[in-house]
């Protein structure tokens, strides 16, 4: 099914992406092709169960889960090593366009 402009705009918001009107139009047309391609699964011959969980791996007993034992956290300098931190915080300054 084709993607309406409203639908596309909603997806863009959910994805936190912005497109210029031309870009959006171009994208939307390409998306139509891709969605048509995805739609082919609805022609799939095979039936199936309703259980969609656990497609690749088996379930584990809760006993195999991680034990509640403290592991040392990393130093603040490491945590902030990819940003200009401030007083130990991540931060986003307001800046005017």
């Amino acid at each position: 099914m084709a993607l309406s402009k409203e639908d596309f705009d909603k997806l863009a918001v959910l994805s936190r992406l912005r497109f210029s009107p031309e870009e959006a139009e171009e994208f939307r047309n390409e998306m139509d092709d891709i969605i048509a391609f995805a739609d082919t699964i609805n022609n799939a011959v095979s039936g199936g169960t309703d259980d969609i969980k656990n497609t690749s791996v088996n379930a584990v007993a809760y006993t195999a889960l991680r034990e509640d034992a403290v592991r040392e956290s990393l130093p603040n300098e490491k945590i902030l090593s990819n940003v200009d931190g401030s007083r130990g915080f991540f931060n986003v300054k307001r800046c005017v366009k």
Partner: protein
Amino acid sequence: MREVLTVLSDMLRKGEITSQELTEKYISAVEEVNPQINAYVHTTFDFAREGAKKADEMLKAGNAGALCGIPMALKDNICSDGHLTTCCSKILRGFRPYYDSTVWSKLKSEGAVMLGKANMDEFAMGSTSESSCYGAPLNPRNTSHVTGGSSGGGAAAVCANIAAYSLGSDTGGSIRQPASYCGVVGLKPTYGAVSRYGLIAYGSSLDQIGPITNSVKDAALVFDAIRGVDENDDTSVDYNYGGPSANALTGDIKGLKIGVAEEYFDGINPEIKDAVMDAVKLYEKNGAEIINVRLPILKEAMPVYYIIACAEASSNLGRYDGIRYGYRADNYEDIDDMIYCTRSEGFGREVKHRIILGTYVLSSGYYDAYYKKACILRNNIIKRFDDIFNTCDVLIAPNAPTTAPKLGHHGASAVEMYLSDICTVPVNITGIPGISVPCGTDKAGLPIGMQILGKRFGENTILNAAYFYEKTAVSPVKEYEGGVRI
């Protein structure tokens, strides 16, 4: 085929060369060759030299493993502490993880020497590596052709002898297909065989790290070094392979039951079909049993793959918001605007495509028709492959419908590019292992790859089948004349 790792390891252990000397050779080779093929996007030569020094100490102490002191490359989506790891995306510009991926941590402790990070499609989304923000790597076999993708840089580096081996990641064929385009060996292990901790996620239920090497034996040696259950990856599995896979290579394939499904050959370039069928005949001649199987379900695999991969990707890539790492837009009004600007400027076109598609298939009203349906079909495909492996030990198939296309060829249609993955994605959907081995060249001299698939944790079987072919076939692909030759 050149068992590069075995040869280098012997030389290092016998003291014929030190790791530091070998590393300098590789560094020179990278400096000379890389500008022609763009295989590396970040180099870590100082780190490599340090690693080589440590490796020499380990070698001297006599407790060195098979990979000790040998220079290699990591794909640019595998984290190593303090080194640029950018997924070849502007949005991860300058990102240096502060922890090691499990695979790198294992290799490092064995004395591996990392030369740098290899080029790839942005966030591993692509089949040609052309979506890299650093420009595409070029196929060393013919630089007007692509390397394949997404682990194109790693395949090119191994092919051009500027890495003794590399680690790639395979979400829909990203190890096997570039390996086949570049005429090297690529192993996609069973889902869960190798820890994903520190692999920057694309499609979490499909991603798997594996080696790209010059030979099957090399692939087995690297696989032995990186596999194993990991407390940091819930989906990793504690599987007992009964010893190193490298030791399981006997080359004996008598009685091996090989499945061949004609659906795998639909729309495949005749040259490739012939090359793979010739290989099948070689197996048969040497005592394997060929079983024709049907896989009509195969055509469902492509949309299933794209729906699941994009759904997971749309969620996995939500975290790139400019707050904690990587690129942040320069101009914005407030924090919300900053996130929009950062993402809109930081992600490339193909990535945006897949994020939007993934968001779409998960959004309310469409979830059942796309994501849920894809998961149901995925289970059916898994069951069908299980059935096949009840009667067959391995499946043999081509790796791609064509050999490496020219650069820019796929620009026309996204769907066309998606369809080029038809041969490789079923392995990721089902979680089974697959290996790509060179199997001749086409008229243009470009390598053809053959794919051997096995049941879950059947790596030893497919490695051995590949090993047989490598030993028995007549010169499947010629050696690249450049880089570090041994």
